[in-house]
């Protein structure tokens, strides 16, 4: 699966998208993460709109057939949108990880810090290194 060039990535295989001219950061998991997890059966987004998140803290879990994984906030800020479609249709993450499989939107005073995350090239290099 190709890695979209307009996103920024974490080492935990999450993607972030900062809308230009805004402080809203959309968060999801990468195609690589989806491939590793296999069939996703449950997405638990354990947050409500308005919750304050701290970068690095868990905001939910993903259950695949084989395993449970934590989801981590890539930036600090306030949760302003949650993809509740995933409650009933967790497979959206498998089918469209960079689109309909988005998870939360964080309004962040530190939204610019997203620029410090991995760009597509650096993320690809991380994947290459871990598959060696």
């Amino acid at each position: 699966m190709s890695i979209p060039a307009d996103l920024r990535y974490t080492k935990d295989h999450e993607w972030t998208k900062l809308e230009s001219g805004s402080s809203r950061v959309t968060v999801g998991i990468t195609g690589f993460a989806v491939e590793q997890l296999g069939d996703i059966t449950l997405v638990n987004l354990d947050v409500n709109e308005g919750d304050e998140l701290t970068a690095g803290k868990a905001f939910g879990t993903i259950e695949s057939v084989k395993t449970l994984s934590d989801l981590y906030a890539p930036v600090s800020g306030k949760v302003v949108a949650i993809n509740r479609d995933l409650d009933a249709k967790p497979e959206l993450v498998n089918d469209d990880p960079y689109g309909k499989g988005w998870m939360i939107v964080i309004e962040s005073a530190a939204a610019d810090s997203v620029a410090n995350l991995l760009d597509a090239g650096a993320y690809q290099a991380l994947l290459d290194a871990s598959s060696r």
Partner: protein
Amino acid sequence: MSDTPLRKTPLYDCHVRAGARIVPFSGFAMPVQYTGIVDEHHAVRQSAGLFDVSHMGEFELRGPYAAHVVDYLITNDASKLRDGQALYTAACNDSGTIDDDLIVYRRSQERWLIVCNASNHAKMSAIVARAADNHCEFDDITEATALIALQGPRAFEILAGAVDAFAPVSALAPFSFCDARIGNVACTIARTGYTGEDGVEIFCASPDAESVWNTLMSAGAPLGLKPAGLGARDTLRLEARLSLYGNDIDETTNPIEAGLGWVVKLNKSSFVGKEALEAIKAAPLSRKMVGFEVTGRGVARHGYVLRDPATGAAIGTCTSGSPSPTLGKSIGLGYVSTAHSAIGSPLWVDCRGKNVEAVVVKTPFYKRS
């Protein structure tokens, strides 16, 4: 993690070529999935799947006293077997807890095969060798032996296209076995399995494994046969409520509480663990293995605590849990105190601090029609 290099089965290259994801399992590099756990799971329920289970251990016992040695090691009654019949059993220790679960095969009164779990191979090899010492010949033939499981409703249709002289194979009763040829390879085919489907497990010499695998894949692919990995093997066996050693049963559990009382035959003569099992059976059980369905949002996993919803008190532990691809539900097995083991008893599964509702249900979760 130990630095011991992983062992490879004779089919390892075959799996890599098929695009399998390889993981360490019981010291072996094993395929966990090819196309995906759910896809492979459905293939086995609807058509058939092919599994490499060559990592399992095989021992051969030969001689006039081999039958006695086998019967001394196991809780089930091997004296009832005729030539060409096999038996599922536990092997216990003196405390009556489970050293391993096995299948024993009687080729003849003087020639027996024992198949053990890969995770217990070293332990069981030592136990069986010690029991055989001075009584019968013992060979650990694990390295020389490949084991391939063909499982699913179309398994025998596929075999018909792969086996020379199919009649004796088609006539196999459950838990019986015969010699046969697949392609040009001498095999032993047993009507056994670990998926809840009809099917067979096929023994052959390690150097012949790839030939057998390829012959079966060619015969089966047009009928929907897919290679299936350890991931699907686990979800399939859980739906069928087949115990997994190391998860559901181990040296801290006895066969009675594990629901394996049917493989403990206390009326046979002396065997390892007999006295302890007599005492266990005479006393009320403090806990029992149950199946449960998670009705709330969550997946039970090995080691999660099970609670009484009325009080929040811990009443047991989950030993296996997974989403069930066939049922579309979240299911699990676990030991609970006997007071909470009746069908319909409500439970909480403590999913990392979050109590998720569950209910004790009848098992197996899935039974083929």
